[in-house]
């Protein structure tokens, strides 16, 4: 299944990069992000809550109606008794169906690293929809993004997983400067059915970036 999705995405990317958007310009944007993340794990009746700062970056490129987005962040989340490192990332291909609406597809992964144990990695292939609305034309937009994982896996214990999430916030651009900022709230949940494991992550992130 994963292989099929990869092939579809690759075909789409090739199309996007050749004839369909041949007459458009490439637009590239980079950003650095930092934020507070809260992760809640639940296995049956056992619960654990950890929180901490994560930092990362993102890169977006677009040509015509096609968009690609890469995000990566890492940090450490702790509580009074335990702590673990977290690394997360996503690679998405998108199509701007309307000026205000973009649909995406691609993988989304998060890995928790606990000393003395092997990594626990959540990988979800997801479909997403992003809707944007203008508050101040060219300056401030709000956005809401919803995603749903249609297939996924957990590395330890090896398990197929499902999940979904949402992100909403505000994008600001400076007038006559290629600098932008974003304030966003994100929540997502991964579920491993057979063992009743749920991993819920909330994050408030602040991103500052620039366009090239």
């Amino acid at each position, binding site marked *: 299944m994963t292989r099929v999705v990869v092939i579809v995405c690759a075909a789409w990317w090739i199309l996007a990069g050749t004839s369909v958007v041949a007459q458009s310009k490439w637009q590239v944007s980079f950003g650095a992000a930092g934020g*507070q993340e809260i992760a*809640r794990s639940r296995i049956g009746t056992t619960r654990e809550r950890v929180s901490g700062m994560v930092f990362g970056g993102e890169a977006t490129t677009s040509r015509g109606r096609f968009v690609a987005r890469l995000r990566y962040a890492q940090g450490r989340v702790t509580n009074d008794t335990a702590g673990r490192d977290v690394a997360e990332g996503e690679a998405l291909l998108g199509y701007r169906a309307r000026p205000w609406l973009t649909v995406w597809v691609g993988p989304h992964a998060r890995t928790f690293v606990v000393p003395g144990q092997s990594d626990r990695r959540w990988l979800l292939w997801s479909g997403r929809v992003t809707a944007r609305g203008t*508050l101040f034309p060219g300056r401030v937009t709000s956005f*809401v993004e919803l995603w749903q994982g249609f297939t996924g896996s957990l590395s330890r214990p090896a398990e197929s997983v499902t999940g979904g999430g949402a992100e909403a916030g*505000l994008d600001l651009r400076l007038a006559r400067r290629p600098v932008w900022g974003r304030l966003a709230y994100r929540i997502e949940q991964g579920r491993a059915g057979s063992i009743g494991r*749920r991993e819920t992550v909330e994050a408030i992130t602040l991103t500052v970036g620039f366009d090239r």
Partner: protein
Amino acid sequence: MDPHRLEAHRRMTRAVALCAALIAGAASLPPAAAAQAAPAVLVQAVRAYDDLDLDGAAGLLRRALSVQGAGALAPADADRAMMYLAATEVLREHSDSARAVARRLVVANPRFRPDELVFPPQVLTFYEGVRRATPAVTARAPADTAIRPGAEALAVRLYASTVHDVTATLDRDDGRVLRTLYAGPVGDSLDLHWNGQDSTGTAPPNGRYAITVTSLDRQRRAVRILRLPLEVTQGRVDTLPHPAPPADSLLLPERQSMKPALRAFAPAALAGVAIAVLPSIVANGEDASGARFVVGGTVTVAGLVAFFSHHPGRSIPGNAAHNRTLRDTWRREDAEVARRNAERARGMLGIHAGAPVLITPEAP
């Protein structure tokens, strides 16, 4: 059954069915068809008259004249039909009937003269005799006019059937005489003039009046009275049209619309609501952090700022000034027209004339 009888029975059945269809078709014809027939009947009647089928012509002419309403003969055709009927009755030696029809024609149209190439001399002589013995007038006046009392006059033209004496008076609506306009003989026609004043030399007040023309016989008895109704209005004669107020399409909006403000606020409101609500949808059963309201609140506040930055409902001075200029120009033009109308109408008398009515037709 005998084959011949069977065939006869079939033919009979077909004939009955055909008759029934024809009757049904005739019954379903619209009533207007009969009414529309009056001019056609007149054509038939004239043909019958030319063929000297006088009985048939008389019947057809009476039928054509009896049609009322939308299908009735036009006034000129009615005059022609009456003349043909009078001629038919003369030729049939029904002199009383001929006289009654001719007199009816003279009263209806005193100016009517029969065509000498169509009717024989005996008919022409007969009609001429009736016309001379039937004093009658009709009147023509402009439907709407304005005069300056004492300086100008309303002209009413009278057309007479024959030379006879008439009296013409200006009456109130209740019949009281305000002024005698003319008393004397009338030949072919006569112009009556009313200078807009009563017998005391003053203009009558607003109201309904009538010019009454009484035709007199040789014994000076009133044989016919014609009333021409008048409606008199003082000083309200708008001779210049007032300009139309500025069209809505020329006016600019004087206040900022709410739409752009709402369009700016709506995305922020939706994002704010989404931040508040989505955790319960995405991560049902988890207690989402209250920190999300910081982001939700920020988005909502940004939306409010965007909303008020459009200044909804605030007046637009430039547009208001543009509209004020348009309205002021229109008001000035309207006032100027009103002033010029008032100047022109000062001392003027507006007169509206109705259709003349013959209120005492002579008994046949």
